[in-house]
Every structure is written in C-alpha cells, then in structure tokens.
C-alpha cells in the first residue's frame, strides 16, 4: 500500500526533526545530569534571534542561523556563570523549579519584545523547492535536517568517545571530586558542555521551526515531547536519543496515517511500553 513507504519516509523525517530538537537536552541533561527544563528557552532565543535577523532585517538565512547560534551560546555562557553553577549543586526538585523559572523568564522576554505571534524564519529559495528523490518528493528543507542530524550525531560521537575532552567530561560527570583531584578543570568542562548543549538547542530551534514554529510559548509547549525523546533514549546516550527519536517519529507518523481518531494516545502508549521494557535506555549504555 502507498502509505507503508510514506510512513517510513515521513516517520524518518519527523524523527530527525525530533532528534535535532532533543539532542541538545540529551547533552545538558543526560551528560551533565542537570534537570534543565529551560532547554527549550535556549532554542527559543536562537529561533527568535534568527527570525529578527532574517525576517525583519533581511539577513541571509545561513548567516542569521550562524549568528543566532553564536548569540545563544554567549547568553548560555553568561547564564552558566551567573546561574547554572549554582543550579548544578541543587537537588533535583530545586533544579526543576529553578530551570522552569528561567524558561518562564525567557518566554516573557520574547513575548514583550516580539508579541505572541509566530516568529517565522524565512527559508532561502534553495530550501523551499521540493526535491524529487525518484520514489518520493520531499521539501529540500527536510533533507537539510537529515544531513545536519547525521552530522551532529557523528560529531558528538567523536567528541565524547574519541577526544581528551570527552574522557574528561565522562570523568567529571561520574565523580567530580576525583576528576578535580587528578587535575581536570571540571568547572571549565561543565561550562563548555552546557554552552555546546545550548548551541545545539538553538540549532534545533532554527532547523525544527518548520514543524515546531518559534513563538513565545515554545519552551513549555514542546518540553514534554523533548523530555520523552531524551528519556526514552536513555539519558546521556546520544545514540539512544537518536534511536528513540526515529522510533517515536515512525510510531507517531504511523498512528496519524492509520489511526488518527485515537489522537496521540498511541504515541504515549508506545513511550510507556518502551520505558517499562528497559531501564537502561535504548542505547544500552547507561552513561556516556
């Protein structure tokens, strides 16, 4: 039937969008073990800045995206120094309250500056045209999402598994005191990781905007979805997040093709089954 191939293709594409949006949280929440509900806030900062540059000032899409990610990382660095260093030391429930507060502040700021309308990021002509793959027509933008998603997956792998920084990060997360004792600058490691995760959030916000449009209430509107992908994937496992995003993307798409009357029940039921069936995360590795 025509929709079997459609489910696989559209599910894969949707899964890649989910991965792009969730991977940053997998880095900050999974690798650093900080409950960061303000993750979507950094995606919103990136997306709103890209909108401001590209839509209101006509800046080229690629330049706007790069500048916005850079700005988000600078804001994240400032937030790390002033706020998050204190938040790392808090208990989990306090982290939830503190970071959800940050999400509210970001939402209110964007609402004040831009209003509550959708903040579209206009695509360049090259990304607007549908591309014929022979077996299916896809918007060029979705192909970009797939390429960037795979690129991010590969780079994070190299960074965590193959570099000295990755070794230090894993050591710092597993036992901060011992890591500091053998001369690892754990403060610096955490700061770099947090800023990287926030940069990925901004990247996800901008690239994912075609499906999850940027607007002031973005951080809380999508946090549940992002948390589901991160948790189903197993916190801290980039591979797990990738597999979870693809799996959930395909399940959700299949439900919408065949059983849309049941709304999102199937998606949440699938999530519960996966979480119940395994404790360690889809990626099998408990912690990276």
């Amino acid at each position: 039937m025509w929709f079997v191939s459609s489910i696989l293709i559209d599910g894969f594409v949707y899964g890649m969008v989910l991965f792009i949006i969730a991977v940053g949280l997998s880095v900050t929440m999974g690798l650093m073990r900080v409950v960061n509900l303000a993750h979507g806030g950094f995606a919103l900062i990136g997306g709103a800045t890209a909108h401001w540059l590209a839509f209101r000032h006509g800046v080229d899409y690629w330049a706007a995206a790069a500048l916005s990610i850079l700005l988000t990382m600078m804001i994240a660095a400032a937030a790390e120094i002033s706020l998050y260093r204190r938040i790392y030391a808090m208990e989990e429930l306090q982290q939830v309250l503190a970071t959800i507060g940050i999400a509210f502040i970001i939402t209110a700021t964007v609402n004040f500056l831009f209003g509550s309308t959708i903040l579209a990021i206009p695509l360049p002509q090259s990304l607007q045209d549908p591309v014929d793959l022979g077996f299916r027509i896809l918007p060029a933008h979705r192909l970009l999402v797939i390429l960037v998603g795979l690129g991010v997956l590969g780079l994070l792998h190299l960074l965590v598994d193959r570099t000295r920084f990755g070794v230090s990060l894993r050591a710092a997360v597993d036992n901060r005191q011992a890591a500091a004792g053998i001369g690892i600058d754990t403060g610096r490691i955490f700061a770099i990781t947090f800023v990287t995760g926030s940069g990925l959030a901004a990247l996800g916000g901008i690239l994912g905007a075609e499906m999850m449009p940027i607007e002031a209430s973005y951080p809380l509107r999508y946090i549940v979805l992002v948390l589901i992908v991160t948790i189903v994937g197993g916190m801290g496992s980039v591979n797990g997040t990738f597999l979870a995003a693809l799996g959930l993307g395909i399940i959700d798409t299949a439900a919408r093709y065949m059983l849309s009357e049941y709304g999102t029940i199937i998606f949440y039921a699938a999530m519960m089954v996966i979480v119940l069936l395994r404790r360690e995360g889809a990626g099998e590795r408990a912690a990276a």
Partner: protein
Amino acid sequence: MNFTRRSFVGNIAAGAGMLAAPSLVLGQDGPVRIGILAPFSGPMALWGAQFKQGIEVYVAQHGNKAGGRLVEFLYRDCSYNNPDLARNMAQELLVRERVDYLGGIVFSPDALAIAPMLSQARKPAIIFNASQSKIMAQSPYFAARTGLTLEQISKPAGEWAIKHGIRKIVLVMADFAPGYDAETAFRSSFEAAGGGQIVDVLRVPLQTNDFTPFVQRAANSGAEAIFAFMPAGPLAFNFVRAYHDNGLAKQGIRLLATTETDESTIDQLGDAAAGIYTSFFYSEAHDSDVNRAFVAKLKELYPKARANPAMVEAWDGVHLLYRMIDQAGTDGPAALEVVKGYSWESPRGPVSIGPENRHIVQNVYIRIAERDANGLMINNEIETFPAQPDHGWKRG
C-alpha cells in the same frame, strides 16, 4: 503587537485610584466604565493586543465620549484555557470596579463561565469573539456578539465549492468542538446541493506537529479540493506550510480554509499561502471607505500593524457599546433593547444584530490569498455571500 505592559499596568493603576474614591465615579455624570476581558499574556496574548488596538482605533476616530459621558476601558488579563480565572476577573470588574458594561471574551468556555454572573448583576456584555453558537442562549445579558460562528462561515464555503465545480472534497478538521461545527455546516450546504461527495474526513489531534501524514492522505483520497479548519497559531501555520511543501497546489488540489490566512500571519506564511481560498468575514483589503478610514487610523497609531479580524470584532464591539451608552446610559436592561436589530456599516461591510440570537449578521467573503500591486500578501475578496446569519443557531 506593540502592546506594552506599561500601559496595561497604567490602566490597573488608574482603576485602583478610582476604587479609592468611588463616590467620584458613581455619580450620574461620572465616566461610564467598560471592563475588557481578554488574554494579554501567554500563548494567546495576541488577541488581547489586537482587541486593544481595535478599541483604540475606534476611540481615536469617534472620541472618548458617548452620550456626553466620558468612557473608560479597564483591561483584565484572562489567559487561555482558564474559565475560573475569567469568572474571577468578571466578578472583580462587576463587583469591585463597578463597571457598567463588559466586552472582549475570546474563548467559549470563558463566556459560559461568566454568563450566570451577568444575569445576576444585570450588566450587558458584548462578546467580541467566543464563537460557539449556543453561548448566546446562556444569558439575555449577552447583548450582542460581533465575531463569527464556524457554522456562519462554513455553510457559504460549501455552497461556493459546489458552485465552482468541486465534486469530491476531503475535510481536514482539528479534532475539537469547533472542527465538528465547521464540518456539520459545510456538509449541510455541500451535500444538500446534490452531486457533491465528501470522500473522507481527517481528524487532526490538537497535539500535531508534523502535518505531512494528513496532507498525504488528503492528496491520495482522490479529492479535487480540501476544506480545512485549524485553530490560529502553530496548527494553522504548520498545516498551510505542509500543504505548500508537499506540492498539493501543483497537483491541482485546491485548499479552501477559514482563518488560516489571517493578516497577523499572512506575511510570515508568504508565498506558502498564495492561492489558498478562505471563507471569512473580514479582509484588510476590503474595498470600502469605512475600511480605508479604519486601516488608515490603525497605521497612524500602529505603523507596523496589519488590520485583522480580531481588531474589527473589537471596533464593532465598541461601536455597539457607544450606542448602548448613548441611548440607555448605564441602564443595563434598557441597553439590551437598543442593539437588537440595529444595523450599521462596519469596516467588514454592512452588518446588523439578529433580533433573536443577538449574533452579528454579516457578509461572508470567499477570498484568495495573493500579492497585491505592492507585493504585499492580502486576502483578495472574490465573491460575497451577503447577510449571513449564524447558521448554527437552534431555536429554543
């Protein structure tokens, strides 16, 4: 969009000052006070900002006095999906602030929540938006409604589709009450005419991000066109994008929709919206002197704003409030009578208030989204269904 929190706080502060000296405001010649309930924060804050702009345009055009008395507006924030808050805010306005009239009200549950209180206080309210048909039966103190019902705009859409040779259509409907209302009304005119077939009805859950599955199913349903209703915001935006990105227009499958090309998002949709037909009651490009004056005054006050239906709902709401004050002062029961059957010219075209259900009788226009001579995206009115009542109203 240019709504600032400072002016909002200013209004609250002014309200608090009045409270301190109630004898000054309660005298026969003191100002008439109107409480406006709308979301000014949260995901639906655009509604509040646009109501306020519509009100300010009306006041700038007609002055701040009605029937010789000063008119004051008190704005209260009712966030989305919180009827309890709406009830509390209405109570505060009616009891503590002693307002004479209420206006605004975006969501149907909010209207249902405040209905008993209005009847008790015997104060009239003008509903600017809350669109469920049955609301007007809940209290005689809902003096009028200046928005729309989905039945009102969907029935002409069905008529238009049949008239223009569409025989097979697929419905793509947000899976909540307004989606069902739109479907019922569309079905009543599309199928009644004979020859038309609704090949499928796709119900879209409100938590949908990726519309590709629905658009692909619509494309494969064998239909020549889609009739769709999605609530304003990310759903409407994503749906239009998905329709465009998957090349349905190129396959010759037309899209007939309702609010999806509202002037507050049409610039952001850009060419993705081009060629979409909508059935609705107001376009910024409506050709009349009243509308040109309205748009000109709006641009003078808010140079970046684009006139949209929410602003016109508020403008007409204030027009009715001014009439009630002029004819009946602050006598609530008497004021109800002076708007029943009343007709006037709105920026949207000629309108009147239906004497039985107090809902606005208005033209419904079929429009096509396209660029005008200056390259601006507009909703160009191509056909008019004159003087449409609320087709969802049931007697008794």
